[in-house]
């Protein structure tokens, strides 16, 4: 990426020491649909609001929570097409890792790799930063569940629970109140759904949200089916 005609970066410092393109990218993220994640002691859950512009949209075709390796997955807030590029790159790099080491890429390595890519786009010629923040859920090499956030600048943070996108402030406050250190995955999923519903415009149902879960016991990242989501929603009611 980055045309040879543009050998200079488009992301440059302002006088006050800010990289405005990154600030603007974060604005794009804050305008995106809410996503959140919770790291429980035996797994991680990530979820997002999949609400679409019209009832004519085939909602089953839209995929926002994506598995990257067998034991890790992404969700985002921000610009969808930018997200897809990151998903492709992350999937490719984790397969390359497997070819090299005959071992699945640990989530922490995947995050660093992805963050490096995002940073590159703030310093390379002729490109703009990605307009997404990612939430990465996975089980690391030592078996511990982990949740990370990766920002357009390439900074990454490990979280116990967090939210990004529209309404993230309220969502994070809600999570702060509800989060407990030794939370179990089932409780985390419930809490995630409740948090999502807090800021939801209109009625939340199993077709306008997406939930991804990775359980420490088998280390496999899975999307919950609409039926499973419905079960959790029924329990919550």
């Amino acid at each position, binding site marked *: 990426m980055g045309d040879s005609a543009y050998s200079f970066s488009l992301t440059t410092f302002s006088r006050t020491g800010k990289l405005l393109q990154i600030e603007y990218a974060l604005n794009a993220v804050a305008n995106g649909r809410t996503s959140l994640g919770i790291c429980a002691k035996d797994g991680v859950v990530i979820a997002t609001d999949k609400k679409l512009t019209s009832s004519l949209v085939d909602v089953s075709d839209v995929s926002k929570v994506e598995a990257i390796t067998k034991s890790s997955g992404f969700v985002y807030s921000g610009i969808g097409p930018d997200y897809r590029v990151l998903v492709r790159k992350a999937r490719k790099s984790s397969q390359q890792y497997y070819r090299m*080491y005959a*071992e699945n890429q640990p989530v*922490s390595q995947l995050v660093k790799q992805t963050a490096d890519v995002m940073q590159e786009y703030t310093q390379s010629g002729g490109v703009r930063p990605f307009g997404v923040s990612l939430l990465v859920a996975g089980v690391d090499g030592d078996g511990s569940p982990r949740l990370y956030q990766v920002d357009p600048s390439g900074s990454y943070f490990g979280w116990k629970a967090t939210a990004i996108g529209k309404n993230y402030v309220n969502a994070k406050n809600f999570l702060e109140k509800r989060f407990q250190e030794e939370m179990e995955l089932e409780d985390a999923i419930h809490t995630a759904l409740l948090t999502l519903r807090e800021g939801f415009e209109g009625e939340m149902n199993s077709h306008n949200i997406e939930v991804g879960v990775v359980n420490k016991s088998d280390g496999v990242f899975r999307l919950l089916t609409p039926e499973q989501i419905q079960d959790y929603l029924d329990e919550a009611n």
Partner: protein
Amino acid sequence: MSILEYNGAAIIAMTGKNCVGIAADTRLGIQAQTVATDFKKVFKVNDKLFVGLAGLATDVQTLDQILRFRQNLYELREERPMTPKVFSNLLSNILYEKRFGPWFVEPVVAGIDEAGKPFLSEMDLIGAPVYTDDFVVSGTCSGNMYGMCETLYKPDMEPDDLFETLSQALLSSVDRDALSGWGGVVHIITADGVKSRVLKGRMD
């Protein structure tokens, strides 16, 4: 003259009970002329993992540097040491990268994995691996070494027993090969550490 036989080498690795041993000769020759009797062919990757490199001496040394470089980077990034299986796969990839202009080495990997289980692998110069649970050999007298190992090896040897067996297998194999011998070293790796000994053999 085959380029893999230019400098001469003999390397054997064997498994024991929760331990592995790796032994090599220490001759460096230029065809028939012996030039050094203290040439290192077995290198420590980490506390639980050794690699033995048989073949062209310059490639032996360069690959040792490359492997140490890769393993250091891995340890820094991943904050954990490389397991033998991972290292073996990495080495195989590094060799295959040079498929049409290969490194002239045939390596042997010996180590203990995180669960304490012994690990052995051997590969050809372009990285085709072989995993066994008894012994692997590489070098100019590999035929001799196969014969000796097949005869002397028994499973689940204790470290001291393993040392005896490895030493005898190596010394007898190299005595019938002009290009290997002139001294030997043996490393025995257990969960508690590594014991290295220098062998006293025929210096001819």
